[in-house]
């Protein structure tokens, strides 16, 4: 007969983490960094779970929890962007905030957590920003118009393997906004470049190619994003490691479309 041993209680062995978190009541008030201390942080927690623990303690004390955005918590939705110690999505390359784990930190570390900062991404509350500027860039041209009807034959439209790979690399963009947050100019060139590249590389995106480049870039500019200084900071923090080659492709697409007189 197998007897399950009774669960044994172990003494807390968590880390002590000091947090400095940006608190801002709403879009129009001034914000400030507030210090918090967590004394039992498990190295197995994700960064967001650590913030959940912080919020539980705040709620128990009757304080306002820290507002931050998250959804899938598996690195694919793009909701959870935080500026952690001055780097978008924290210290690890190719990682979203939710996939950053507390084992990256050591006992006694201090962590500064800020929201994305850009005129085009207004802070709504604490660490949450409004990224609908990205949605408006997509609405301006980040789509392929198709006839809805009978499904077309599979493989009726052939796509060269190299183009398919490049398009897929660009399509990996999850629109998290880390590129804007990290860029010294708050430029959305990597995001818009990825979307323009993704569709313009595929035959289905061909007919609207010029119009798409013009309209998406015009919308990007209208939102108040800066220009690209070609520092590559965006690629370095991009959780999907999208290449600044997509920015070069967008520049070519935009210039060609402007020369063609596309609108």
């Amino acid at each position: 007969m197998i007897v399950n041993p009774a669960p044994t209680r172990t003494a807390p062995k968590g880390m002590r983490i000091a947090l400095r978190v940006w608190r801002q009541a709403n879009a129009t008030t001034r914000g400030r960094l507030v210090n918090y201390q967590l004394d039992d942080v498990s190295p197995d927690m994700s960064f967001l779970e650590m913030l959940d623990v912080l919020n539980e303690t705040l709620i128990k004390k009757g304080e306002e929890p820290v507002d931050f955005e998250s959804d899938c918590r598996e690195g694919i939705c793009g909701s959870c962007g935080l500026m952690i110690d001055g780097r978008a999505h924290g210290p690890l390359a190719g990682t979203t905030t939710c996939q950053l784990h507390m084992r990256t930190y050591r006992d006694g570390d201090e962590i500064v957590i800020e929201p994305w900062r850009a005129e085009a991404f207004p802070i709504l509350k604490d660490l949450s920003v409004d990224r609908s500027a990205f949605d408006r860039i997509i609405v301006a041209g980040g789509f392929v118009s198709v006839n809805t009807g009978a499904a077309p034959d599979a493989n009726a439209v052939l796509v060269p393997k190299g183009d398919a790979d490049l398009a897929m690399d660009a399509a990996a963009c999850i629109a998290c906004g880390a590129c804007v947050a990290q860029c010294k100019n708050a430029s959305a060139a990597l995001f818009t470049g990825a979307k323009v590249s993704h569709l313009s590389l595929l035959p289905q995106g061909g007919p609207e190619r010029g119009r798409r480049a013009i309209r998406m870039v015009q919308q990007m500019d209208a939102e108040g994003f800066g220009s690209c200084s070609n520092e590559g900071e965006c690629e370095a923090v991009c959780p999907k490691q999208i290449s600044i080659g997509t920015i070069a492709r967008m520049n070519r697409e935009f210039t060609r479309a402007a020369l063609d007189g596309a609108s």
Partner: protein
Amino acid sequence: MALESRAVPTGRTTPYSPRPFPTADGAVARRAYAVSTIGTKVILAVTGLALFLFLPIHLVGNLLLLVGSDTFNRYARSLESIPVLVPVAEVGLLALFVIHASKAVLNFLANRRARGSNYAAKRPATGGASRKTWASASMIVSGITIGVFVPVHLLQMKFGAYYPVTLDGAPARDLYRLVRELFHDPFVVAFYVFCMVVVGAHIYHGFASAFQSLGAYHPRYAPLVLLLGRGLGVVIGAGFLALPLVMYAAR
């Protein structure tokens, strides 16, 4: 739990009003190509590369200073003797300079507005993809420094003292003497050396950046262009700053 809370100067009142979405029939804000973010960078790239092309020519010509007085003065006179070359080059360079500088300053200001409020903590990204260097982070500073240097340089050299000399039986301007006398002054030498480091730094980032702005990116060649640009920055900067040092040492 809140141990302390202190205001930091980075907070900023951000008025929030959601923008309307663009519509299917094309209500997108229109801007001319030249004032778009991409058009601006393309103009900066084209004018920057054109201005850059002047530097190797200028450097090779100036290195004749090390050969000797007559060689350098003969070179200067033969350049002047080519019809319309100098005036056309001067007007062209001036136009490129003005366009590049004004576009760069406007671009810098627009980029500052795009950030809005500053981070309390900001660090460069980790990982190999970033090309950020002290040179790339200070392009506006190096650019303004060059913008100050070039007029001073022209006043000292082109519009400097005119020493007549007879060369091969014909009159010429003794530019060699002018340069030698200028570089007797350690302050002038220090100013030139500093400015040439700045020019090198501007090329260090600017050369490869221009190619990227023009859309010339290839996964295999882009790293080589980046290396080439950095190498050119070092070589051209070192070449130019060597001249005042050598002239001073040989005074």
